[in-house]
């Protein structure tokens, strides 16, 4: 087994394969960042919506709760399949990457909205009352009082979520998106030893994930309310 690997190593690390792996890494990162970026924006909107007490928004609030609670309880793989089967007939020609992106955004929005919501709720009630007594509007309260106080509660779990998310995108390989995991499969199919192929892919994931997880741990120490 090991002779086979030592034989293959020079072949494996040729220019063509390295570019192939780097491109795949780019797709993994792309899915992670587009997913989490979108998740932040929509997750924030949902979190704010759920905080609002306007009666007119009640149906929307219920819809948001249903969405968040459902998507946090379905495996990513199942979400991928559903999105695939819904989008394919509706918008034929949508790329697999596009389908993966939609699934990734659906999932991250649900999870991040919960992280953001618990951050917003961490602001003590007296702060809100102070603002209300001084005639702050809901938006002013959010921008001037709640957000400046809640970002340090939101950031550590949000960055920990991004770390988890990098790894979850590996399931998109099932659709045939050439991200890291699928690239590994292709290399192994081309005849490289599985240990070499998947081992190299594991190293790539580690390179992406480890610095970010250290950063998340640092944020947690740094921003934790002592």
């Amino acid at each position, binding site marked *: 087994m090991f002779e086979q690997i030592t034989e293959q190593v020079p072949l494996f690390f040729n220019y063509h394969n390295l570019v192939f792996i780097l491109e795949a890494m780019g797709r993994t990162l792309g899915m992670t960042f587009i997913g989490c970026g979108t998740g932040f924006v929509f997750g924030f909107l949902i979190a704010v919506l759920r905080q609002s007490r306007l009666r007119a928004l009640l149906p929307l609030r219920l819809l948001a709760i249903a969405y968040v609670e459902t998507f946090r309880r379905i495996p990513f793989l199942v979400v991928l399949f559903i999105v695939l089967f819904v989008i394919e007939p509706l918008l034929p020609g949508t790329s697999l990457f596009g389908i993966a992106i939609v699934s990734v955004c659906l999932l991250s929005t649900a999870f991040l909205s919960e992280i953001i919501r618990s951050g917003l709720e961490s602001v003590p009630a*007296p702060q809100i*009352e*102070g603002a*209300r*007594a*001084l*005639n*702050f509007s809901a938006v002013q309260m959010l921008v001037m*009082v709640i957000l*400046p106080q809640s970002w340090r509660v939101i950031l550590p779990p949000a960055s920990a979520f991004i770390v988890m998310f990098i790894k979850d995108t590996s399931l998109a390989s099932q659709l045939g998106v050439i991200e890291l995991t699928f690239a590994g499969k292709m290399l192994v199919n081309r005849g490289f030893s599985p240990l070499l192929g998947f081992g190299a892919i594991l190293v790539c994931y580690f390179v992406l994930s480890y610095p970010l997880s250290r950063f998340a741990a640092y944020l947690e120490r740094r921003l934790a309310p002592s």
Partner: protein
Amino acid sequence: MHHLEIKNLSCGYGSVEVLKGVTLEADKGEVVSLIGPSGSGKSTLLRALIGLTPPSGGEVFVAGEKIDYASRKALRTLRDRLAIVFQQYNLFQNMTVMRNVTIAPLKIKKRPRAEVEKEASVLLEKVGMIDKRDAYPEELSGGQQQRVAIARALATNPEILLLDEVTSALDPERVNEVLDTIRALTDEGITMLIVSHEMAFVREISTRVAMMDDGRIIECGTPAQVFDAPSKARTREFVSKILKH
């Protein structure tokens, strides 16, 4: 016409009635203190007046105008005229002392910065906190935070100031600095409604004292009447108990 007139006001949290028909009035520049055992509804009365806990019945008039607590617009106008200082100060933790005092006039009332900052400096000078203008609330003692909170409430130029147990959360040696600050305000013509357990202080600065018990005002009169010759047994009992401490 009274400056503030409360008629048969009731208010509760869920099914629990805390205020069971409170009637009270205050003339312009008057200092009315609310005393009574804890749970009698004193703080709830102040919170109801400024609409933090909306009243469930009765009427409130400010300068003869009836307040509609269901209307957002009316609430906004009301909060332009009334200000409240909380027991726990409720200063914005993410803002400096100066920012805490200037935020409402600048951002809510949209007044020019130079003017607002000048006024804020005068107010901070008055409460003795001008040298801490760039400090954050967490760097201040409770007494200092409470003095800033008073300056913040005054910065909106309120006609009526509500003070909710402003010294209850303070260390004993910090109580006087806050009481001195309030004392200095009594000549400014602001109508004040004070909830306090500092009986000597209440007696000294109030024009009238109202005794609350179980969600109602059971007795109201000058400090001398209420403290020296209370007409109700409940008041006598409360006053004698609290004066012994």
